[in-house]
């Protein structure tokens, strides 16, 4: 295995973008120092290493910072290219497809489900849910397109797009507990629902995805979840 040098990850337990990076590091079997950040009171290390956005995740490798979760995942894949598995596929067209859908996840899927979480009334939540469903349907299409009938977006084993989508499962499962909403529903998007179950049960899913209760507790703490709403 390539000598890894000094590796630190600045993160927040409940952040899907941080989870994504931790999954990439786990896939490569790379060990690192994880430093939980208090985003309401940002520390010097975070401010110095991500002055532009002041956000997590930030990977610091031998003192050099890398920011933006998808850039970090690709960085990890490239630095530890000699270590199996490859996170991105080798073929340029498949790489382009993986990047296209990962961008779709961040540009469309993430804001859509976040809208459900932040809804202030049950009515607004229903509206946000109905806006999210077509996006989920697109992900079902993506899965069919990318997986070629295999278990994961990336084929027989977990890869880039599985990480891009899968890191959101923490909050999707939390919202099911909090509101009873089922964003990835076996009745509507059966292939994606089956993938979600497989992903949760995969090594990287089991080892890295926190329990949904952790997200529920966090939501209560920051008062996103209003139990008084219907």
């Amino acid at each position: 295995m390539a000598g890894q040098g000094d590796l630190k990850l600045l993160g927040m337990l409940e952040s899907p973008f941080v989870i994504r990076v931790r999954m990439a590091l786990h896939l490569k079997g790379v060990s690192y120092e994880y430093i939980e950040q208090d985003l309401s009171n940002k520390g010097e290390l975070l401010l110095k290493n991500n002055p532009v956005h002041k956000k997590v995740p930030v990977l610091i490798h031998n003192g050099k910072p890398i920011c933006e979760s998808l850039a970090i995942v690709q960085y990890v894949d490239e630095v530890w290219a000699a270590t199996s598995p490859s996170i991105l596929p080798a073929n340029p067209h498949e790489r382009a497809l993986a990047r296209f859908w990962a961008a779709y996840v961040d540009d469309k899927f993430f804001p859509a489900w976040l809208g459900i979480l932040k809804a202030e009334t049950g009515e607004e939540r229903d509206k946000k849910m109905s806006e999210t469903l077509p996006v989920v349907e697109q992900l079902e299409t993506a899965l069919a397109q990318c997986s070629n009938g295999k278990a994961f977006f990336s084929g027989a084993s977990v890869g880039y797009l599985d990480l891009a989508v899968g890191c959101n499962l923490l909050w999707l499962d939390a919202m099911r507990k909090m509101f009873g909403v089922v964003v990835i529903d076996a009745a509507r998007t059966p292939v994606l629902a089956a993938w979600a179950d497989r992903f949760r049960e995969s090594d990287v899913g089991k080892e890295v995805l926190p329990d949904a209760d952790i997200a529920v507790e966090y939501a209560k703490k920051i008062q996103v979840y209003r139990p008084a709403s219907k």
Partner: protein
Amino acid sequence: MAGGDDLKLLGAWPSPFVVRVKLALSFKGLSFENVEEDLGNKSELLVSSNPVQKKVPVLLHNGKPICESMVIVQYIDEAFAGTGPSLLSSDPHERAVARFWAAYVDDKLVTSWVQSFRGKTEEDKSEGTKQMFAALQTLEGALRECSKGEGYFGGESVGLVDVSLGGLLSWLNATEEMSGTKIFDPVKTPLLAAWAERLRELDGAKLAFPDKDRMVEFIQKRQAQAAAAAAAAASEK
């Protein structure tokens, strides 16, 4: 140039995202068939090649579609790795930094500039303008850091971020001309101002950039349409 590579670009000449792809193809020395789409009447080929977004640009390489401008640019760099200069460094950290700044251009600069044009109120628009100038200030620092004293974000030669930001230049220059306010201010952002001049002079840029007067005319027409639509909506109340 690799033999047997059929490259077709579905685009629209004013689109900065299409210009990005043209820049990448030109800088790599790749020839392609340019297909001009009527975005008010999208072709079957566009809709079937990009069913998710139905947007330009779409690059068809031997019939296989690739969508999203920066995904296409990286595809071009990887699929034609042996042809022309590399748009990304081979060093993983430099690649990550380039990807970071390319994402920044889209998330901060494009977003704020769109708001400055399409903001619903004058207040929205001026907030967009303010944020756009703040983003440009940040990009000035990025250029200083990435160029390492050379001329481009990619260093000695153009790279991912030069293509990402370069795609926007025609719109930004046309806006400068129309408003009379410098966007790449040589006092506030000297490196960016010099970079913009330098990029415009490249052969690849001359091939990709729309004509400035044509751009101004296009934007004026768009603004007139938007104003007419707003007036019609107001009078319907």
